[in-house]
């Protein structure tokens, strides 16, 4: 990075939108309260004033309607960025996302491209309870035809969103509600981060920890604790689930021979299972210990903040898992 400049994750996303809207008049925004109000998380602040109501469109509360409209607009020459306010609400629009957007190009034999980005946010941590705290990225990753981006820092969020908007296929871009105010360095020069490149957020040689979104920060905290015990953890941020950069994970495992996967999604049938399955499939002989997973407990998310905290992965759980992977008693 050539310029030291510190902005928040929300600001970084806002910048990405602004830059892409400037660069391409076909980029339009659709969503609830994104116009004059600037979005409930302030991500679209100022964009209505700058680009007008033809390009920043406040919609009725009808996620199926406006996601579908986003798909239709994308098929005919626009590049819509649709905001679904919480990832939990994608469930009211799931047919449009999984049966329409994801399959349109294939079903048409490649005639139709759907350059659509669905921005949404997920995750727990503030007592929003069962219907406003989920981490649903695995569902989108399981259905072929979508790319799935889940950024952890302002830098990544900006660079990945700009790339997402330039993709020719539908992209699900899942932000994390607890990261919006998090700050980080973002250069003022334009840059892009291609989808499908994981990032080593910390180097280490003893154990590999793979994660994404908010959990990356928990993993980094865990790595610092582990360092105090003389354990050097390598922290890899997948950044995108589709495409999945398994190569980087494999390379790291070839060095550390131990792997811990951490996600905020429900543990069972979550994406961590896929990474574990792939690594043991493709690097079986490299593993000195089973691949371990840290995920949310298999229950809906409780409102009570203590309960919520306990059921979501915490730094302590990651440290314990890493120690387990090293066969150290916990």
């Amino acid at each position, binding site marked *: 990075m050539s310029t030291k400049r510190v902005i928040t994750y929300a600001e970084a996303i806002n910048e990405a939108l602004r830059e892409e809207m400037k660069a391409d008049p076909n980029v339009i925004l659709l969503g*609830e*309260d994104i116009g*004059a109000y600037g979005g409930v998380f302030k991500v679209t602040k100022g964009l209505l004033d700058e680009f007008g109501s033809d390009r920043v469109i406040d919609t009725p509360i009808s996620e*199926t309607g406006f996601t579908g409209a986003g798909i239709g607009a994308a098929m005919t020459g626009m590049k819509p960025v649709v905001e679904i306010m919480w990832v939990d*609400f994608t469930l009211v629009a799931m047919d449009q996302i999984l049966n329409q957007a994801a399959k349109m190009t294939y079903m048409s034999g490649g005639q139709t491209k759907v350059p659509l980005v669905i921005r949404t946010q997920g995750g727990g941590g503030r007592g929003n*309870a069962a219907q406003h705290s989920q981490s649903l990225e695995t569902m989108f990753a399981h259905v072929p035809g979508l790319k799935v981006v889940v950024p952890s820092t302002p830098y990544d969020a900006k660079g990945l969103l700009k790339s997402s908007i330039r993709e020719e296929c539908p992209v699900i871009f899942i932000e994390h509600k607890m990261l919006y105010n998090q700050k980080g360095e973002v250069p003022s020069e334009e840059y892009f981060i291609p989808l499908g490149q994981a990032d080593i957020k910390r180097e280490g040689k003893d154990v590999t920890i793979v994660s994404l979104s908010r959990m990356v920060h928990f993993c980094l905290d865990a790595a610092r604790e582990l360092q105090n015990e003389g354990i050097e953890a390598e922290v890899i941020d997948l950044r995108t689930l589709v495409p999945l950069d398994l190569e980087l994970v494999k390379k790291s495992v070839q060095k550390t021979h131990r792997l811990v996967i951490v996600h905020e999604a429900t543990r069972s049938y979550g994406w961590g299972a896929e990474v574990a399955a792939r690594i043991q499939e493709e690097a079986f002989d490299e593993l000195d210990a089973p691949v371990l997973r840290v995920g949310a*407990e298999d229950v809906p998310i409780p409102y*009570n*903040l203590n*309960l919520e905290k306990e059921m979501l992965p915490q730094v302590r759980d990651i440290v314990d898992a890493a120690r387990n992977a090293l066969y150290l008693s916990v």
Partner: protein
Amino acid sequence: MGQLLQFFELGEQTWHGDQRKAEEAWRTMNLIRAFEEKCIELYKQGLMGGSLHSYIGQEAVATGVCMNLNTDDYITISYRGRGQAIAKGADPYKLFAEMLGRKDGYCKGKGGPMHIACRELGILGANGIVGAGIPIAVGAALTAKNKKTGQIALTFFGDGATNQGAFHEALNLAAVLKLPVVFVCENNLYAEMTPIKHSTLNEDLAERGAAYRIPSIVVDGNDVRAVHEATKTAVDRARSGEGPTLIEAKTYRLVGHMFGDPETYRTKEEVAEWRQKEPIKRFRQVCLDEKLLDEDRLDEIQNQIYKEIDTVAKRAMEADQPGMEEIFTDVY
């Protein structure tokens, strides 16, 4: 379709001399207001998680509607649902405890502000997903019809919810199956920060009920008597097997969509104007004008409620947190 759409007008004799009703309405509206004000205090103190969606200004709707319901009638509500829960008879202590995430809460602190439920009172549950409670109420009505229990189901939702597919599908289903359900749309003019007039061309959302051939009534939602009477027709229709009714209660929320909302989307003048028409102030005047309750009685009830709410909230603040084992219970 014309006859299906009705604009309710208050008869001159409504509640004439009925002090019992007046006292009940006054009590409930004040209880809701006091509860909601206290919640804001608690929220400000950082004692709650999530977001807080206040019902202040809409008390006449919950009150007028629920005065028609029996304890075993079913309701579904939304994240803005403590008002209706109180009107349905919920215990403020258990409500506060739930708001604070405590063990004594209706949902043991696991549901929270957006998911208030109380089985014994027929409160099937509040919903964080706009419109999602509507089909659920239709299902409860199906049970009532099937079991011939004489119960009815009633669902509260906002103006914005009428734009959701779930609204459409639920209303049509209820119409076709002729179910004992009442749809109460609380039109407070805004869906979050978006004026409803920007997201539909309908002047009256009741038109949307009529579109399924469901009799639909527009009523002044800040007049508790009007709400009560209009809903009565609907509840009677449902109970006597004549099928669903939609009520559009025109009202206004006097505070932000949620705590912290800067309310940049509406003018101070607009809010001030609605403050003049707010339901508690208005009903006080009605009570005085119609000699239903006098100044002293009104104040006495009000003061008593505020005191009670204070006490109850304090007690809830001291209630236990749920045990960690609760994480794993109630999943299936």
